[in-house]
């Protein structure tokens, strides 16, 4: 490159920057002067100095010039010297249009308010939902090696024996960890015992995840071996609750009645396997223990791909098959599969969350269509004004630009209001979305504002495009001619009608979804869970691991007695697992005298004397437990009808004997009704019940239940029940609720999704009504002259009203039909939430259609009433 060329290029960039910010009329003179002075300076002080000077000039000039551009556009100032030399500063036209748009919105507050609020509702809702579900669904998991981590099949079903056997030889895995949920009681000084959601794990967990502590150390090999010092790693949140002091490392905490040393604090934002977990403890693994509820997670070895793991899984299942004997239905060697960690952790949340986001986006589309229709109505009302401007020389591009600027301004304001609405309604939304443990992670943050502005911009651009196309295609000069000759019409409003039909269709989709969900929930409520859920108070507790079984039994017996004495409580009982809370606690069963039966398991519940009457489980045959059944007496068992039917078909099961492994067989003393021991919608499954007072084993987690004389008292006795339990040491309340709420929760996310849909379909209906109202009002004002003449000629006002309402009904009907077709097309997406109702359920669809039609007629009735009262004299005089 020659010296001259480099000289030119050094000055070119600053000059073109300056050129971009100068008014067209002044560009040439200013740039010429600058170039001349640059050349003078180069000759006097050298090129480098001159270049530096030029850069300084440009950099210091830019802020003043940008400010001047804005001010000139906003104030419309034109220097006297430039009058014969047109060409203002850059963006001047846009800035002037912005000023014009601001003025227009200020002079039409109703239009501005409706447009901004409508759009803000869609924008705010969409950005709030997006912000809430972004973390669980799309944000990277807080583990360095998240992409290499997989979860093993049969989660919560691995035993310590299986893990210890597999651990030394895991082909194709870097390392594998076993973990299980364990709620841990924390006792500190005089504060009441607290139950903390925790994880009991083998030492490899953090290594598998690729996560390290913020303070102290993570687990290391040997922490889970017999004789190792008991250690715990705590979450950032718990660390702060405990004072947030680094000296906590090395201190001992009293956890589950025993001392454990805190060895590490995980960094803020770390969670596993869900954000509710507060601490992780390394647990001694017993190679002899064949029961267990562990989940296995493994890190793939470097270079291993998930798709190529089949040979490794084969080796693992072969090893399992050689070592263990699995009953039918629980055979781990049959269904080996690995799930990527994210899928395993949040996969079950995804459908409900995505459905919510999709519905919110539909609301946004309705809102955008609404605002577009409103804007078109405005443009239409301004046809004459625009036509005059066009006749005076404003080019079509200028008119389009005005519409675009107005849409962008509306979008920006809607974005700000939307962000405000999202912030105000954030907690309500978090409660309404089925987030589970992720709810506590949802927080309002700056990206929420960015999302709202982004969403609003996209909506505004879409609105601007549709409106601009309409203006671009509009017949402005024709409109001027018609205005002059007082002709009827203007634009046909076809685009507006199309937009309303579209939004009615979308509203129909949402309303139909809500109706289908409503029917599903209704069907679920109609399912008989086999227990009487009214008037039962429920308190979940955890007993410290170090409390020996006899002491546990004594505490439980005492608490049952005390709970029974609370005023309003008619009976109290305990169980280690409540119905309707999902599967689990399935124990092996064998029938004495029937060695031919294949080994199998059934739900196994350890309960107290009055359990069946407290839960409202009916007795079919024989008797249930009484005070005569004692620890040193004959072992007795109560079975449900499903168990009797399965194991003793065609014969009486009373007095037959079952074997569970307590040393002696148990005699069946009674048969009770089937209760939904696992999920609400499960088919009746075999279950058996034993008396806690007769068994050597007493679980750490127990649930006390109390029946109240009046159903409404189930809530009110909870307070007294909790204080009774807090009066005992070594036991902590985990949750206090009612059987009714347990039942509600057993319905799964469908209830929350329904409440969300119900709110959103109401919003969609309101927006749809606003749309219909806007378009019909506009239709009426366009035809005002027409109606005036007809009424003057003797047409009955009632017929005018009928015609207007008819127009509304027509728009709604077309929209409803389109919506119905769309609902049937996308109904399979609802599939996973529906129960006992088809996706094309005629009752749901008819109800939704009717609701929309009624709303549409009501929305059209107001302008229709106005049209019917048209005074022909006034109208004719106006034109």
């Amino acid at each position, binding site marked *: 490159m020659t010296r001259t060329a480099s000289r030119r290029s050094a000055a070119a960039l600053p000059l073109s920057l300056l050129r971009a910010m100068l008014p067209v009329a*002044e560009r040439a*003179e200013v740039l010429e*002067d*600058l170039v001349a002075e640059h050349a003078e300076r180069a000759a006097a002080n050298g090129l480098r100095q001159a270049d530096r000077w030029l850069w300084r*000039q440009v950099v210091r000039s830019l802020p003043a010039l940008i400010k*001047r551009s804005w001010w000139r556009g906003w104030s419309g*100032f034109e220097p*006297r010297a430039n009058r014969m030399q047109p060409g203002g500063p850059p963006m001047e036209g846009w800035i002037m249009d912005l000023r014009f748009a601001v003025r227009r919105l200020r002079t039409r507050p109703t239009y501005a308010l409706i447009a901004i609020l409508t759009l803000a509702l869609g924008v705010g809702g969409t950005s709030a939902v997006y912000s809430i579900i972004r973390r669980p669904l799309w944000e990277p998991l807080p583990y360095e090696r998240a992409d290499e981590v997989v979860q093993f099949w049969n989660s919560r079903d691995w035993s310590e024996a299986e893990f210890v056997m597999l651990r030394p030889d895991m082909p194709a895995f870097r390392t594998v960890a076993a973990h299980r949920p364990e709620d841990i009681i924390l006792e500190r000084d005089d504060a009441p015992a607290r139950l903390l959601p925790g994880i009991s794990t083998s030492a490899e967990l953090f290594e598998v995840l690729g996560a390290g502590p913020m303070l102290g150390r993570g687990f290391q090999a040997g922490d889970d071996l017999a004789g190792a010092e008991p250690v715990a790693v705590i979450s950032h949140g718990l660390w702060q609750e405990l004072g947030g002091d680094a000296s906590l490392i090395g201190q001992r905490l009293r956890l589950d009645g025993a001392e454990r040393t805190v060895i590490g604090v995980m960094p803020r934002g770390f969670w596993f396997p869900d954000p509710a977990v507060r601490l992780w403890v390394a647990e001694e693994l017993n190679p002899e223990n064949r029961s267990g509820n562990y989940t296995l997670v493994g890190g793939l070895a470097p270079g291993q791909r998930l798709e190529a793991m089949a040979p490794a899984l084969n080796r693992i299942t072969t090893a399992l098959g050689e070592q263990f004997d699995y009953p039918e239905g629980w055979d781990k060697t049959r269904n080996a599969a690995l799930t990527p960690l994210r899928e395993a952790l949040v996969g079950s949340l995804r459908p409900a969350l995505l459905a919510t986001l999709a519905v919110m986006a539909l609301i946004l589309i309705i809102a955008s269509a609404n605002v577009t229709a409103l804007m078109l109505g405005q443009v239409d009302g301004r046809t004459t004004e625009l036509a005059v401007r066009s006749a005076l020389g404003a080019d079509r591009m200028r008119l389009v630009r005005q519409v675009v600027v107005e849409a962008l301004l509306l979008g920006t304001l809607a974005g700000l209001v939307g962000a405000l609405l999202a912030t105000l309604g954030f907690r309500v939304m978090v409660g309404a979305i089925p987030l589970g443990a992720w709810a506590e992670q949802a927080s309002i943050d700056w990206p929420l504002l960015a999302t709202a502005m982004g969403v609003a911009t996209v909506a505004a651009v879409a609105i601007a495009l549709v409106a601009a196309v309409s203006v671009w295609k509009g017949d402005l000069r024709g409109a001027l001619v018609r205005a002059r000759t007082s002709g009827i019409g203007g634009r046909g409003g076809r685009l507006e009608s199309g937009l309303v039909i579209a939004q009615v269709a979308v509203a129909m989709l949402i309303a139909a979804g809500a109706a289908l969900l409503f029917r599903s929930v209704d069907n679920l409520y109609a399912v008989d869970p086999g227990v009487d859920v009214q008037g039962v108070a429920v308190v979940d507790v955890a007993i410290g691991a170090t409390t020996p079984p006899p002491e546990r039994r004594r505490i439980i017996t005492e608490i049952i007695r005390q709970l029974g004495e609370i005023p309003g409580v008619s009976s109290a009982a305990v169980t280690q697992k409540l119905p309707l809370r999902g599967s689990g606690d399935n124990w092996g069963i064998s029938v004495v005298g029937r060695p031919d039966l294949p080994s199998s398991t059934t739900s196994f519940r350890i309960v107290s004397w009055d359990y069946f009457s407290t839960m409202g489980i009916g007795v079919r045959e024989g008797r249930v437990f009484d005070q005569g059944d004692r620890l040193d007496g004959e072992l007795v068992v109560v079975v449900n009808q499903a168990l009797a039917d399965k194991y003793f078909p065609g014969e009486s099961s009373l007095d037959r004997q079952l074997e569970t492994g307590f040393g002696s067989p148990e005699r069946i003393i009674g048969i009770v009704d089937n209760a939904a021991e696992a999920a609400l919608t499960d088919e009746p499954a075999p279950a058996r019940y034993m008396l806690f007072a007769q068994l050597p084993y007493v679980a750490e987690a127990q649930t006390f239940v109390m029946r109240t004389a009046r159903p409404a008292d189930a809530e009110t006795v909870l307070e007294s029940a909790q204080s009774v339990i807090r009066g005992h040491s070594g036991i902590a309340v985990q949750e206090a609720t009612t059987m009714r709420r347990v039942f509600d929760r057993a319905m799964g996310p469908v209830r929350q999704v329904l409440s969300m849909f119900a709110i959103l379909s109401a919003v969609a209906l309101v927006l749809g009504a606003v749309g219909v109202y806007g378009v019909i009002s506009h239709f009426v004002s366009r035809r005002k002259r027409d109606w005036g003449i007809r009424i003057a000629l003797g047409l009955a006002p009632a017929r005018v009203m009928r015609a207007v309402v008819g127009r509304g009904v027509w728009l709604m009907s077309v929209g409803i039909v389109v919506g119905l077709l769309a609902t049937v097309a996308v109904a399979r997406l609802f599939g996973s939430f529906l129960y006992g109702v088809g996706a094309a359920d005629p009752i749901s669809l008819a109800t939704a259609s009717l609701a929309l039609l009624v709303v549409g007629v009501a929305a059209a009735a107001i302008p229709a009433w106005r049209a019917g009262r048209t005074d022909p004299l006034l109208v004719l005089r106006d034109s």
Partner: protein
Amino acid sequence: MTSDAPLGVFEEQVMLGVIRTGDEAYGMNVRRELERVTGREVSIGAVYATLDRLEAKGLVTSRRAPGGARRTFAVMRPGMVMLAETRAIRERLWRGIDLARLPVLA
């Protein structure tokens, strides 16, 4: 359009620059004059933006000679009045102040 708001320091300087450069009062020349007298570097953008603002206030006017490309500026009568007022205010403020006698604070 005139404004009763007092002149800013830079506005006053720019107007004086316009007067000092006489018939050659175009943006770049005004900038050079200000730099020459004040000994500080002045950006061309600031000069043009200020001249526009002064013109909008009716204190200066701009024109182009027939066939001449450059926009030149002249101070209008209200501008002269404003300059005189600004100067009078400043002189009143300075009256009785002797910097040499004031205690010097570190």
